[in-house]
Each structure stands twice: as C-alpha cells, then as structure tokens.
C-alpha cells in the first residue's frame, strides 16, 4: 500500500459525480426492509428477497462495479494514470493500493446498509455475518473489476455483463455457473456464519471460501501483470 496513491485515489473516487450513484441503492435496501417490517411480515418471508435478491444480487455488485472500475479505469480513461505510472513504484504496490481503497469504500457503502437490514430483521448475529459477507464480496468483486480496468477499455460494460448475465440470468437457470459466482460464495459464507431462515447458500462453504480466495488472488496477480505492460496510446502520432 502506498499512502500517496491511496490519497489521490480516494479523493478522485469520492470527488467524482458518479459516486452519488452509490447513495440511492443502500437507502432503497434499508427502506424496503423498514416497509416490510412495518407491514408486519415475518423476516423469514422478506429476508431472502431483500437481502439475497436485492442486497447481494444488486447492491453489492453494482457498488463494487462503480467503485472497482472508478479507482483505476477512470484514470486510464482520462490519462491521469501516467502521473502514477511515471514513478519508480512497483506495479504491485499500485494495484494493491487501488484494490485496498476500492474494497474499503465498497465494504462501507454495502456493509453498513446490510448490517442495518440485519438489525431490522432482529438478528444481530446475521447482521454481523452480513458485514463479513459484504467485506469478502467487496474484495472478490473489486479485484475482478480492477482487473477488467486494465484488460479492457470498457470495464463497466464487461463488468455489468458479468453481474447481470452470468450471475443474474445464468446463475438462476444453470446451477453449474453458481460455482463460479461471487454472489453465491458470499451467500454461502453468510449462511454458514449465522444460520437463519433469512438467506440460504447454494454452494458448499469450503468451496466458497477457497474459490473466493482463488478469484481474488488470481485476478490481482493478473492485474499486476497487465499493468506492467500497459501501453499508453497517444492521441496523435
């Protein structure tokens, strides 16, 4: 981690207008949970839909997508990355710092509302498990989206395709793809930490832990490799 890179990255991320897109999703999550409770429904009835269906299917991956591509993709896009690349810094240090900032911000924006929703459901153990799930998910998703930022010029589009098509559509039709889905790992881990009627895991817990780790390490290692050979193209000859 490099403090200066972290400072520039954080200020760049929170200073962009795009960051305000992050605010409605957590509010929606908490709002729906409050409405559900106000109508007198049992948490077991709405937990799966709001926590699994909205929280882990939409809120966490979308926040991770905006933040994960924002920490590096935007800088590559507007060319400011050259100021960081033209310094004698190991490329791994740059990637680790970017990933660290992205994971922290994502975990904050997704973890806090999930924790509150867990409390609304009346189960503190679940609330803490949801925070752990949010942190694990933030790390895995952000490593993927940081990698996409150095691999493609359209990281948001490719990332969205992964979240919507692979995890969302295919994950519901073909159970096989669930074994390659961050969302499923997170749900399995939360379910294992605090078994409840709120959320059910579809993938074995040891597999989830290992795969989440493999996902993160492999993506990060490849991202470092790609940053070493990132060509900065000129606008004119």
């Amino acid at each position, binding site marked *: 981690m490099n403090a200066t890179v972290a*400072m520039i990255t954080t200020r760049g991320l929170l200073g962009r207008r795009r960051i305000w897109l992050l605010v409605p999703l957590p509010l929606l999550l908490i709002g729906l949970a409050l409405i559900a409770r106000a109508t007198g429904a049992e948490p077991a009835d709405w937990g799966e839909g709001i926590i699994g269906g909205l929280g882990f299917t939409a809120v966490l991956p979308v926040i991770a997508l905006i933040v994960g591509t924002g920490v590096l993709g935007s800088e590559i896009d507007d060319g400011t990355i050259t100021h960081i690349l033209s310094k004698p*810094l190991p490329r791994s240090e740059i990637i680790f710092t970017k990933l660290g900032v992205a994971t922290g911000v994502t975990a904050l924006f997704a973890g806090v509302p999930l924790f509150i929703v867990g409390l609304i459901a009346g189960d503190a153990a679940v609330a803490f498990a949801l925070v752990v799930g949010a942190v694990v998910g933030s790390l895995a998703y952000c490593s993927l989206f940081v990698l996409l930022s150095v691999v493609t010029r359209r990281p948001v589009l490719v990332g969205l395709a992964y979240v919507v098509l692979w995890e969302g559509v295919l994950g519901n039709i073909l159970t096989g793809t669930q074994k390659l889905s961050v969302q499923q790992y997170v749900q399995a881990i939360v379910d294992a930490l605090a078994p409840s009627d709120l959320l059910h895991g579809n993938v074995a817990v040891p597999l989830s832990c290992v795969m989440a780790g493999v996902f993160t390490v492999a993506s990060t290692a490849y991202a470092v490799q790609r940053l070493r050979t990132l060509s900065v193209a*000129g606008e004119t000859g």
Partner: protein
Amino acid sequence: MSTVDLQHVSRWYGNVVAVNDVTMTLGPGVTGLLGPNGAGKTTLLHMMSGFLAPSRGTLTVDGAPTWRNPDVYRSLGLVSERESVHGFLTGKEFVLASAKLFRLANPEEAARRALALVEMEPAQDRRIETYSKGMRQRIRVAAALVHEPSVLLLDEPFNGMDPRQRFHMMDLLHKMGDDGRTVLFSSHILEEVEQVSGTVQVMVSGRLAASGEFRTIRRLMTNRPHVFTIRSSDDRRLAVALMAQDSVAGVDIDATGLQVRASDYGTFTRALPRIALKEGVRVRRLLPADESLESVFSYLVGAR
C-alpha cells in the same frame, strides 16, 4: 550526465508504421524534436518514456531499457502531451504528491523548489481545474522536475502558452540543459522553437528526416520559398518594383491583388517595406499564403 540511446527503433500498429527505424543519441543539453502532426513524435516520446514497447530496435537511458522498468523514472522526468491532471488537487498538493511518489528525502522542500522554478507559488493553493492552459503546463513541468531528473522529456510543452510564458519555459529548459541535463522537447510549430540554441531532430512520416544544429535548420527555414498576397494603393506599380528584386520569383495580378512568389522568405519580408516606401505605395494588406506545416517540413527534408 545521462544519455538516451535509440538504435533502429520502430513501432507499428497493425499495418501502420508510426516510427520507422529511428537511430539517435541524445546527450546533455537541449534538443528539439520537430515535425508535423502525425509524424510519430508522440509515439517516439512514449517509447522513450517507457509507456510503449518498441516493435523493433533498442531504446535505453544510460544503458537501461525504459520498457517494463519503473526504476528508470528515478532519473527521468516526463511531461506528456495529454494535459490530464488530477484536477481536484491543488497545484501544491499535486507537486508534493509527485515528490512523495519519488520517495524523496525531503518532499516538502523539493516541492517548494519546483514550484518556485516554474513561478507557480502565487497559484499553488488553487485547485488545478481552475488553472489556465499555460498554468497547467507549468504545474506539470514542476511535478516532472521535482526529483531533479537527469533526463527530461516534454511532449509539446509550449502548447497553449503565451509568448512570455513560452520564453520563460525555453529559458528554464536551457538552464536545465546548461546544468548538464538531457532535455528533449517536441513541437510541431517551427516558430515556437526560435530561441532554441541546441540541436534539432526533424521527424517526417515516422522517419528521422534531418538532424543538426538549430542555426543550420533555421537558415533553411527562413530561406524557404513562400507565397504572399498583397493589397496596396497601386498594385501595378508595386508589381513592377518587386519584379526587380532577386528574392521575387514571380508576380501575378488579379482582381484580389498581387500574388507574389518569393524565393526567399527572409530577404523578401525585409525588402518589401523599403520598396513600398521608395515607390510611394501604401501596402494595405500583406498575407502569407496558408502554408501547411507539412510543406515546410518536406521542404526542409528536400533541402538537406
């Protein structure tokens, strides 16, 4: 003292050759890299900066390759063509961040010195997004100089600068050159580099077309043929007088005025006021023909 060495460096994108077999050695002092837009200057500078791999050939700074070698930035300062900066930082924060990223022993002092060098202290606490183009350029130069590199590469540093800023920047570059640093800047505007005293490398269509003392190239530049359009109080009288000049190759008269083909830009522009005065003709308008830079450069190449 540092040397940038290029041996048969080429770079192509698919079928397009951007840089074609360039060999040059840059030593201490100021060197201008001139050429029209699209000549391959930026591609060449990107390769020198380690942002792009040469397709063929070797490119080293003091013997070390620049590609995939971040350590080379300890002795390399870069000012890229794209003026993208982290606009949310103040000028001082930006330069200080650079100093810290270079892991300098005393980043505050280094930043203060660099800001003084480019005369940016009065605006150092404003956010960069509020800066004018020339100020942005200077703050980027300060960030590139903060670690006192032995090699400084600048892509189109005079873009968007007014004449006073340009003069100051050129002065700064020369001071750095006199200190024994290797300074290379690119430009596509010949007139921009008038005060340069060092050597010049001219690139045209990816190739190194001419290189040498600036004075020699400069003479070729001012002696180039040129077409002028003139309106005066008595076009015909002026035409007769002009035809007597050695520096005039031909004159056409039509409804829009005189078209003068001068064989020597410098001599003609000095002679015209004298002739007009002598003949009692009032020159109302003198327009140099819209001459493309490409034609100037190809003239230089042909005259080598």
